[in-house]
């Protein structure tokens, strides 16, 4: 059975099955695939045989009138009907199972926004783009969106649920194969749609418990699991620059801004401070603290030439000290100064510009 499963899974280019539901879904997939292929090729082979067997012998050849008996049409209707309904009879209960979370599932709030995923555990940590769950325990996701429709998609779980602005939707899963699996956004949401990537980390339960305990104990509101564990032990009361980097990661700034000079959706932060920038409206100005702060609060007022006005406002979302910390972080990014360590994000890093 395992061998057959592996063979068919690879034949159909399906990713790993990280949950029992995914495995069950694939079994239905195989059943549909094999029976549909069989039906299709028998029909098409019949057509080809007829095409060869009944070739035209001369231009004016006459042919008999062959009308169907009721039994013919009954077979034509009955066979596909039985087959199709058998697909439905298996598939629909599976769908109902997916829509019915079991009691005692771990709740995770998921918020989609252009172009990142935010995860929040009630009474626990928040994170951006990385969702950590324990293997073998049911997890219920409560999804919403802050702007347009996104769709939370984990191919390894064969599972997808739209995240809608203004309401919550839910879905659940029980991942049982520890590992790291990509999360995609499946509903078109604009410029960064294809780089709205995340990662599902399925951890052995004991490890997850330990991680969660540590997160809960930590009093740092900014603590989040997007960063490697060692990094989280850095003293957050350190320099303003370190805080700025951390806040920028939490706020998802690096989705669009790079810190290494690479072109992306927004201007790079490297050497940005003090540079003379040309704006979309033809004016030029020097990127000082005031401009950098204005750009966080009113991002589309003064867009740098060559970029699209797509940045959301952080007015009311970013406290003044946080904005200051980010500004200090940007100021620290200079090619003639020791540069910041490379960005730490999911293993599926967005493909960056030329």
């Amino acid at each position: 059975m395992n061998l057959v499963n592996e063979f068919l899974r690879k034949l159909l280019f399906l990713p790993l099955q990280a949950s029992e539901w995914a495995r069950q879904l694939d079994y239905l997939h195989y059943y549909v695939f094999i029976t549909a292929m069989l039906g299709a090729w028998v029909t098409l082979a019949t057509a080809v045989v007829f095409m060869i067997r009944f070739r035209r012998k001369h231009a004016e050849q006459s042919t008999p009138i062959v009308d169907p008996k009721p039994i013919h049409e009954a077979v034509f209707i009955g066979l596909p009907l039985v087959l199709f309904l058998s697909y439905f009879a298996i598939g629909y209960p599976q769908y109902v199972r997916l829509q019915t979370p079991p009691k005692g599932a771990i709740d995770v709030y998921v918020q989609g926004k252009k172009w990142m995923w935010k995860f929040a555990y009630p009474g626990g940590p928040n994170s951006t783009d990385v969702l950590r769950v324990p293997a073998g325990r049911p997890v219920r996701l409560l999804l919403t969106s802050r702007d347009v429709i996104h769709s939370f998609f984990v191919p390894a779980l064969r599972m997808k649920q739209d995240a809608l602005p203004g309401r919550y939707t839910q879905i659940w899963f029980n991942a049982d194969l520890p590992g790291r699996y990509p999360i995609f956004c499946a509903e078109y949401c604009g410029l960064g749609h294809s780089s709205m990537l995340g990662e599902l980390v399925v951890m052995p339960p004991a490890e997850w418990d330990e991680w969660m305990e540590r997160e809960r104990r930590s009093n740092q509101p900014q603590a989040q699991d997007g960063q490697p564990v060692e990094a989280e032990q850095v003293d957050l009361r350190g320099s303003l620059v370190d805080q700025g980097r951390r806040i920028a990661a939490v706020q998802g700034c690096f989705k669009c801004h790079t810190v290494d000079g690479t072109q992306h959706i927004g201007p790079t932060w490297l050497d940005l401070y003090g540079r003379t920038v040309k704006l979309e409206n033809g004016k030029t100005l020097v990127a000082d603290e005031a401009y950098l702060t204005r750009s966080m609060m009113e991002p589309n007022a003064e867009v740098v030439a060559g970029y699209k006005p797509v940045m959301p406002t952080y007015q009311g979302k970013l406290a003044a000290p946080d904005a200051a910390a980010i500004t200090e972080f940007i100021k620290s990014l200079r090619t003639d100064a020791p540069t910041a360590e490379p960005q730490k994000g999911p293993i599926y890093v967005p493909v960056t510009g030329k």
Partner: protein
Amino acid sequence: MSPSPASSPAYQTPNYLNAVKGVGSWLTTLDHKRIGVMYLVLTVLSFFLGGVFALLLRIELVTPGPTIMDAMTYNRMFTLHGVIMIFLFMIPAIPGIFGNFFIPLMIGAQDVAFPRINLLSVYLYLAGAAIAVWGMIQGGTDTGWTFYTPYSTTTVTTVAPVLLGAFILGMGSIVTGLNFIVTVHTMRAPGVTWMRLPLFVWAMYATSVIQVLATPVLGMTLLLVAFERVFGFGIFDPARGGDPILFQHLFWFYSHPAVYIMILPAMGVVSEVVQTFSRKNMFGYKAVAFSSLGIAFVGFFVWGHHLFTSGQSTFASGVFGVLSMFVGLFTAIKVFNWTATMYQGAIQVSAPFVYFMGFLYFLVFGGLTGIALSTVSLDVHWQDTYFVVAHFHFIMVGGTIMAFLAGLHYWWPKMFGRMYSERWALAAAVLVIVGFNATFIPQFLLGNMGMPRRYYSYPEQFWPLNVASTAGASLLGLGFTIVLVYLVVSLVKGRVSGPNPWNSRGYEWNTPSPPEAQNFPETPVHDRGPHEYQDGPAAEVKHAH
């Protein structure tokens, strides 16, 4: 018959093409045949425009990162590709060209019921197309052809002109449908009973019913989106108290039946082709005729299968899922009857028949993947991935375009009185079918792997299959170009076909090729069904006096 120069007999006999001369005579014509030809020119132009965008998209996807354009351009381009192919080609092409040209010829009428409204539909098409394409290029619409809210109501790009264009195109579609319904009901010649109606007319009739009933809903929905964008009404955007899912329901209430507007005429075309080239009457005529009506009817109750992952109620998903199976069932009935029609036939494997076989193949696989998608649970994995893209293109390109090409080759001598090069036609048909498979089979597999649609960049594991798909698309593009070239060449250099080069007994062949400006000097009277080949040459058609 030998190749003939431009001064050949085809153009000496009086026909609808040379009856009146000058550009003005075309722009003001009320002749359904000329209107059909005008649709042919316009929709084929649109098709090549949409095709160029498709190729550019495929080139962009050759590498995982940026290749030839930035993300914004890519998003605009797939919007252009979708809108042009759907609204400017798929929906109007077969009804506009073959429906206009052949419904009156098939039922023995001199014209459609409302010739002036028919001409109006061409101008609505022109106006709608011009506004939509201009709007998209000038305003850079980046919403995709589905215009999902609240994205479409909040994007910084311009959306209103393309909505207006689609609205006007919809009006054209409605009046065409209305015209055909009245024509079929009131203008059939003596002897053309409902049970002798050519199957193409049955399919067009079913299509027209959908056009008349569903298109107004699209118009209303697009207007609501425009109101929200322009006047700030809160209809779909939750930030203003609207409901984004409401848009999806309204949109698919039109756009799902719309895919049957695109495929039903194609099914009608191949019904004619398989009968002519098998020299057989349709096996199960009634089953094929009524299954068209069945698809038109059930097609109105399946729209929710686009919303399985949107959070709609589990019960609703089940109902929409099981009803969707019935569309597949009606399609299966047609497939089996077409196949059975070949039994004991006298089959001529000519270019239209090769396209028919291609159509059968693509429809079977496109249809079965559709059934798989409506299995509710499987759709949770495939929704919004390349699997859906491949399924849709199998039905639309593989189904509708194969049938369009089958019809175009079958009726080319009827429309223009000349034959194309059979050798080139066969070569191009093989190229198109192979290229199509090479383009879209990798996309099914990409969907299985989990690659979402509308992705400008993608992780590396999707790379090889994307390259394969682009390679296939280039073959497909080459194939279509060859078809265009030899068909245009045949207009000048093709040999004269004579009135009935296929010895078909379809009713439309009881006229000279090309037909005269006035279809029938005397109203024909039929005493037998179309495509009855049981007794040697076609019986003389009687004329009523």
